[in-house]
């Protein structure tokens, strides 16, 4: 904590701020604004009611017009503050509006109807977080199904990715066989093929195998990643060969060496790949959109997209859902970012 504070307050100038300090703070502040501003806007907007969202000029915080329940009126009535005329300074509720005149009532004495010109009043705004945006999601739009689809695909794909990639990496890093380097280079070379190019062939394969509209259709095509193989192989190269020799002397089968020795020792690299895989899978959009056509098989990302396509867009729900979609990835990144930097550094340097 102390070191963090020291790092955050470190300056070049002693006593007073050097101009480079100003420059770096400005740079950091602008960066924060650019990177974090939209996210903040999104989160705050997700708490606005439908009316609050179309408010002009827009406000940062979720304000909306205050309403009051008045005896004799079934619905709560919108409140206005009177700025001129006889009732100046009072807060009145609007019963109805006729042209430039409004019929208003004092919530304290609901019997009397007062007439006020519309230019003599302004709305009473108040801060309210529309939590129902989130609460309603559970019931509406089968949000639960989408969430489950996303979680299932992300979790299964990540597990399978880790297993397959680590097996490949083990073979490529710890066995000597002819053509090993050629295979490794070939695997890496697939990074040069843009994913869009293999979209159609991939779809043919998926459809032939009957994987369309199944979560497995999303999972399988992406489990073998060159990035993952590369990352794990580079890490496994740092595991001493003597350990594997020792395990062989200890009667361990090759599978047991992999499972009991190599995998546990590769944990940091596996963590990095797991984080990457979760982020890729959770945010994946194009391929699921092609494979999954029925709305009950949609992932969250597809559901978000389909929201917009309808005649009316419920922006308040869309925003709330977007925030929920962002949360898992953000949480994972925040918690495990230490491993990410570590893993990238170790895989990159060696």
């Amino acid at each position: 904590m102390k070191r963090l504070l020291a790092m955050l307050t470190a300056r070049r100038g002693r006593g007073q701020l050097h101009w480079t300090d100003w420059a770096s703070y400005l740079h950091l502040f602008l960066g924060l604004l650019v990177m974090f501003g939209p996210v903040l806007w999104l989160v705050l907007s997700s708490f606005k009611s439908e009316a609050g969202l179309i408010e002009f000029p827009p406000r940062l915080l979720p304000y909306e017009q205050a309403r009051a329940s008045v005896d004799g009126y079934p619905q709560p009535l919108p409140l206005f503050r009177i700025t001129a005329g006889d009732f100046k300074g009072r807060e009145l509720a609007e019963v109805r509006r006729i042209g430039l005149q409004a019929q208003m009532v004092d919530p304290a004495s609901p019997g009397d109807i007062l007439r006020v010109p519309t230019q003599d009043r302004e709305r009473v705004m108040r801060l309210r977080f529309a939590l129902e945006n989130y609460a309603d999601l559970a019931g509406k739009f089968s949000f639960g199904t989408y969430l489950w689809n996303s979680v299932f695909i992300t979790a299964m794909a990540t597990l399978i990715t880790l297993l397959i990639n680590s097996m490949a990496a083990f073979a490529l890093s710890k066995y000597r066989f002819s053509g090993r380097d050629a295979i490794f280079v070939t695997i890496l070379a697939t990074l040069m093929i843009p994913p869009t190019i293999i979209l159609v062939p991939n779809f043919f394969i998926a459809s032939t195998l009957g994987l369309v509209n199944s979560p497995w259709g999303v999972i399988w095509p992406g489990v073998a990643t060159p990035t993952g193989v590369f990352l794990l192989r580079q890490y496994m190269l740092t595991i001493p060969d003597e350990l594997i020799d020792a395990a062989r002397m200890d009667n361990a089968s090759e599978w047991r060496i992999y499972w009991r020795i190599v995998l546990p020792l590769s944990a940091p690299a596996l963590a990095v790949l797991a984080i990457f895989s979760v982020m890729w899978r959770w945010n994946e959009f194009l391929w699921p959109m092609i494979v999954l056509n029925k709305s009950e098989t949609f992932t969250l990302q597809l559901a978000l997209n389909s929201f917009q396509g309808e005649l009316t867009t419920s922006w308040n729900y869309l925003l709330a859902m977007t925030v929920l979609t962002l949360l898992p990835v953000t949480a994972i990144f925040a918690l495990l970012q230490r491993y990410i930097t570590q893993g990238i550094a170790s895989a990159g340097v060696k």
Partner: protein
Amino acid sequence: MASLQLRQVVKRFHETTVIHGVDLEAREGEFVVFVGPSGCGKSTLLRMICGLEEVSAGDILIDGVRVNDVPAARRGLAMVFQSYALYPHMTVYQNLSFGLENLRLPRPEIDAKVREAARMLRLEQLLERRPTALSGGQRQRVAIGRAIVREPRIFLFDEPLSNLDAELRVQMRSEIAQLHDRLGTNMIYVTHDQVEAMTMADKIVVLRAGRVEQVGAPLELYNAPANQFVAGFIGSPRMNFLEGIVTEAEGAVGVALEGIGTIRTDVSGEGLTPGAPVTLGIRPEHVALGHCGSNDAAFAVAQSEQLGNATTLFFAAPSFAVQVAGQVSARRGEAMKLNLPPERCHVFDAAGKALPRRTKGSAA
């Protein structure tokens, strides 16, 4: 206990041959040390015996059974690696039990064996620790323990002490020797340190560039090295070598050394002709100070090292070292008279091969 036999064992990596037809026999319970400079193939030979490297040609026999194609785990051997190769993510207990678990032994039996090995190596207090929390000596003992629990027919050690500091090395050396006495199992030990070889071995195998230079008991190698390489490798400080020319080949050989004169030796000159170039070797500790009448030489001291119990004097031109017991004071540049006893002189021919000593009968 087991016997080990190597017959014309060859190892090739692609085109390069690193082991050239090694023959060797280790009897039951013997402590055999492979010694040689780095790159001589001693570790490769060990890895071939334990099955981690394939044999390109020749046979390896354990108890008379050819094991060339038997996988490492089934040869009944255990190896202690130079880096110890302890599994860093397992506790000491798990490190010791891993091999037994792979043999699918019942739990209580594994536990009993692990505890027994831990007791023998004084590791009981450390069983729940991970290797990173151990000192070098403790790690070394765990590595040995991992070999012991498997009750192997032969123990293999690959430079096990090279990562320890000098004091610990002496201590572990005697622990390994004691272990050998107690278990009576064959041990094959690889080292580049001739002191380790001399102190521990029943039989030393000196290797150079993939060939066996000499096999024998430690003192045999010290007293009667077969060639100049073995003579230079075994013994510390190193044997002195002086280039010379044969003056007399009949009976005992006489060697003329430039700037010193003729030195008479106790070596049979059979097959030599006067004028042939030879190398005269004598160990620093065998040179005596002072005159003896014959075989004398005078040198100017270049440097002296006082060890307390012994003094090493270095001479330049020709480069020569002498070690004498006790404390001798010598100034730089001071001329010293030295005596080279004939029975301590070795003579090597132009190919580096040692000439045989004259038999007792003909010495008269």
